[in-house]
């Protein structure tokens, strides 16, 4: 026994030496890659686009960006703790949350997304037309049957079945729910009062499916079901999507163009505060149920090397990167919002000095 102990102690010495060597080398390694690698964490909704962006940008510039799609909540926490270089969130930070941050945060909207109402009504051939009142009424349990007079009124000539309505919502906290409930809060005072807007809410009626696939699965299985999913998901899975009446009274089909139009219509507000919701946009061609997704970046960057890499990436993403967006079913930013982002980029500093002046 004693001899075994001795040999194991002797073996431990080279291991310890090796570890010491490794730890001595580690700072060097970090210093080498520090200027060319960035880390981010947050929202899952834009992840397919972001990972494409990071790929393309890596090939172009050699700058590597690692992104963990752990959800907006996690992204906000990590940027707050300073463990990542940027966070990503589908919902902008509230004033109260901004105050909790150790330093000033700047929001960069990257792309827009729309939320569509998909439904299962085999007898209805043409797209269903819904008004804000109808959507709120269905999700509050005030309208419970498809042959309700109020639904018929905005769908003249459509034979609506006498089937009960099953409203389906997301069970997991999500930016999609945030966009949908932000919209309902904007158009319906009693919704705002009773339910409100968040990544999860206390739903008055209906059942919950996990993820876009859970919601669309329930819709497909159940005649008379209606639910909300991301536009990209609805398009890729060819779900029927309702046309929704917008602020200027037109029934609008959810498309990438009508989503971009919504951001365009809200641009004057976004210029004042980029966190302004683009839902229920006043633009005539705007689809009303949509939102932007954001990168969260500290205004004053500690590491100048990373700061330049990050600013360079954002500049690329809001210009050249936008052309990638439609192929992945994300709505590109309108020029007016790109301009707002350019203004924000100029406000970034490192060590108190403006970033872009150094470039």
């Amino acid at each position, binding site marked *: 026994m004693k001899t075994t102990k001795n040999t194991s102690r002797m073996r431990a010495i080279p291991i310890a030496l090796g570890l010491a060597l490794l730890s001595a080398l580690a700072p060097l390694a970090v210093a080498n890659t520090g200027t060319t690698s960035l880390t981010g964490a947050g929202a899952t909704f834009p992840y397919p686009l972001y990972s494409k962006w990071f790929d393309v940008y890596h090939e172009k510039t050699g700058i590597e960006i690692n992104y963990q799609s752990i959800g*907006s909540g*996690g992204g906000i926490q990590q940027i707050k703790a300073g463990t990542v270089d940027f966070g990503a969130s589908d919902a902008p930070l509230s004033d109260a949350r901004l105050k909790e941050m150790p330093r000033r945060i700047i929001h960069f909207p990257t792309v827009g997304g729309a939320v569509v109402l998909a439904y299962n009504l085999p007898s209805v051939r043409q797209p269903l037309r819904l008004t804000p009142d109808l959507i709120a009424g269905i999700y509050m349990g005030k309208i419970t049957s498809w042959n309700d007079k109020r639904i018929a009124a905005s769908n003249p000539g459509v034979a609506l079945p006498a089937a009960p309505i099953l409203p389906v919502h997301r069970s997991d906290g999500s930016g999609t729910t945030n966009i949908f409930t932000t919209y309902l809060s904007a158009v319906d005072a009693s919704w705002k009062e009773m*339910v409100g807007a968040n990544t999860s809410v206390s*739903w008055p009626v209906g*059942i*919950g499916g*996990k993820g876009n696939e859970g919601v669309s699965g329930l819709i497909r299985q159940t005649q008379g079901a209606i639910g909300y999913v991301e536009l990209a998901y609805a398009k890729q899975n060819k779900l029927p999507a309702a046309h929704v009446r917008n602020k200027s009274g037109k029934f609008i089909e959810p498309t990438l163009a009508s989503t971009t139009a919504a951001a365009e219509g809200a641009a004057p507000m976004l210029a004042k505060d980029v966190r302004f919701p683009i839902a229920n946009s006043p633009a005539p061609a705007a689809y009303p149920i949509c939102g932007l997704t954001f990168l969260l970046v500290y205004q004053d960057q500690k590491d100048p090397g990373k700061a330049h890499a990050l600013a360079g990436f954002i500049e690329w993403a809001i210009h050249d990167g936008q052309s990638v967006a439609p192929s992945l079913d994300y709505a590109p930013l309108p020029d007016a919002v790109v301009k707002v982002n350019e203004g924000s980029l100029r406000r970034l500093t490192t060590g108190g000095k403006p970033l872009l002046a150094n470039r």
Partner: protein
Amino acid sequence: MKAARISGDRVYRAALGGAAALVFLVMALIVYETSRGSALSLRTFGLGFLLGTDWDPVAERFGALPYIWGTVVSSGLALLLAVPLGIGTAVYLAEIADRRVGAIVSFVIELLAAIPSIVYGIWGFFVLAPWLRNAVEPWLIANFGFLPLFRGNPFGIGMLNAGIVLAIMILPTIVSISREVLLATPRSLREAALALGATPAESIGVALGAARPGILGSVILALGRALGETMAVTMVIGNTNRISLSLLAPGATMSSIIANEFTEATSPLYLSALIEIALVLFVITILVNGIARLLVYWATGGRRSAVAA
């Protein structure tokens, strides 16, 4: 040489003792971390958290009762379905079936335990739910709709679906442990019963009596899995925070609400309330296990059987 053996024994004892102590350390850390994480929610809501039925992330009012209810009802339903089926299968495999057939069938049943829970969830969602919705639930409503248990609309997903999926998931635990325990009971017990003029069924009853503590142990293990199961339940339970007596109604469990909302919980109180749910789930699991242990103790009249698992 003798001294070396003693020190070897000591090292052996210390290593095993350390391994056992590690379990306690992990438990203590879980309690510490969840208590620390839920401090804000504990302070804000106090005991009202356990009885509150509101779960409103917008207004930041949180109550856990719908989830406690969902966990208890779905696990209870799973036991109700799986225990008779599981013990029946175990008796067949151990006592009645040919040894070789028994070994093959129990191998297949143990394979069920290796299926990832997400696969059970997908099956429950795409196969079981339509069947429940189109066949089973309308029939239940038509024939037993006068009971509050079977009132409401046939959604397909809900408490009943979750209970059935959980029952299938915990079945292998009950079957394989109960079978092993039955096989371990002395052959002489049955032979003695038969010699005294018992029918074959009665002799199996004698064996079951001897194996009771082990079988109860298997049920406790199975219950533990049902209480904590997350992914499959989240997919099929319907995820609403309403308490309903009806088995057809959608609901939610403590683990499903954590899985659903943890990633996007942005405010500190919201996060804290979710962590408190984890703490409550932990406490309930300890309570249920404690009660089950007492039950085993009581069922065996305080003696420890040679075949206790």
